[in-house]
């Protein structure tokens, strides 16, 4: 109960802070149409898989853009605003607060997801057959789980790297093409495909694409892989967090300014 209250407080604060920045409003509400517009003009609209990428793929990409970008630099931002010290001193624990923030970012990211869907169907007139809504929603939740685990790991790793902002821009594009959001992973060179197979989002994405192309049954295995990888990521992130905490106390290196 207490955790839920803290989570709600974090969600409220995060939404308020985020939307007080014009740039954020812009990237949540306007930028999502970028990928679907681009793909709309580049891809052959007659094919079914193109429509899925234009609508669903772009929507997932915008969700990822908002979630990951804001989450990965979350700790860094706390440090810059000088609140890192006070937040990490609270009894509820710094890890839980960061985790809540990442979930909050994901919830905010859903707005971008929605914007892309509405834009694609109303303006671009793309239609997407969803064969089983119940399954789609379930699979989508698994995708969100993979997002959260990945963002959490990135947030901790980038913090350990000491230069989160720079690294964030560096991992942005590789994750786009490794995760198969906007085009299939199959077209990448073999050795790149191996790297992409350790990314949970890639498997979730594959499952979702299978649902909208009418192959719900073959979508179960990739999803299982996604869940296992996501759990692994969470464990890794938790462990990295311990290292951060210890490092911070010992060396004082991760403190505020």
């Amino acid at each position, binding site marked *: 109960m207490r955790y839920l209250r803290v989570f709600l407080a974090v969600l409220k604060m995060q939404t308020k802070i985020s939307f007080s920045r014009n740039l954020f409003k812009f990237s949540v509400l306007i930028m999502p149409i970028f990928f679907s517009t681009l793909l709309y003009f580049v891809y052959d609209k007659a094919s079914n898989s193109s429509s899925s990428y234009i609508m669903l793929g772009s929507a997932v990409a915008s969700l990822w853009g908002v979630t990951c970008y804001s989450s990965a630099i979350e700790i860094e931002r706390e440090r810059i605003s000088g609140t890192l010290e006070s937040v990490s001193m609270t009894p509820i624990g710094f890890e839980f607060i960061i985790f809540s923030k990442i979930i909050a970012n994901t919830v905010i990211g859903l707005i971008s997801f929605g914007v892309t869907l509405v834009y694609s169907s109303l303006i671009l007139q793309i239609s997407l057959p969803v064969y089983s809504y119940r399954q789609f929603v379930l699979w989508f939740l698994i995708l969100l789980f993979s997002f959260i685990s990945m963002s959490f790991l990135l947030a901790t790793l980038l913090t350990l790297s000491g230069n989160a902002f720079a690294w964030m821009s560096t991992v*942005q594009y*590789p994750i786009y093409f490794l995760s198969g959001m906007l085009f299939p992973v199959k077209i990448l060179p073999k050795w790149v495909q191996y790297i992409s197979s350790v990314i949970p989002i890639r498997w979730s994405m594959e499952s979702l694409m299978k649902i909208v192309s009418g192959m719900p049954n073959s979508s179960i295995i990739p999803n299982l892989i996604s869940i296992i990888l996501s759990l692994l990521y969470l464990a890794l992130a938790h462990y990295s967090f311990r290292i951060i905490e210890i490092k911070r106390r010992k060396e004082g290196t991760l403190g505020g300014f």
Partner: protein
Amino acid sequence: MRRIAAFLRNSWLAFKGVSLWLNPQAYLTEKIVNPMFRLLFYAFLLAYGYKTMENATVYIFANAMLLSTISAFNGVGIIYFSERHQGTLIYTIMTPKSKFVVIFQKVLFHILDALITVTIGMLLAVVIFNFKFAGNIYAALLLISILGTVSVSAFGIFVSSFGLLTRDINMLLSIAESVVFLFSGANFPIKRLPFGLGFVSQILPLSHTVLAIRSVVRGNIWSGLKLSYMEIVVGLVYFVLSFFFIRFLEHQARVQGNSDLY
């Protein structure tokens, strides 16, 4: 000779004074590593979209050309904003020297900077996708890239002057970058745009360069170079516009006094 050396030296200082890429590591990530990842991403996207490499080739090169927008917006585009931020804009305005020269000096090294990124991008495309062209095609591509980079940097300074009207420079820059990205024709033929939006691309930088690249890659070097001249005209117009816009802002600031130009 000493005059030219002093001019170049000063252009370098102007670049250094507002540039973010001072340490080699930051330069390497921002101007080489990240752009190359970005190029690879769009190259694969285009290769998938256009199904055959033959169709995608032109667009991949055009995307390498688009990497020049990184310097044009994140470098040139923030010049005035950053001058105001550190309080030096007032002296840029107060100098009795010709503003034309001052602005040109501020942009010069960003153009070279952009050219480095574009060249590396094109080389990467050649290596990864195994393109093979005749030597004169490479020469023509280089010339076209130079002209395109100059033009997009001129557009950058135009955008930069609008940076004096906003507190949210990043938003302005991402809008400018997205618009150029979508309307330049670097990813799909301009004629696919609805409602005569193709006209917009005519007056934006890089659209003529993209057409020029298309011609050259297909072997029509001369018609490609001709298209490139149009690009320079577009760039020049933006440069002149930005010059008058700054003059106008300066005048407004003197008359109204409530503009926070300084």
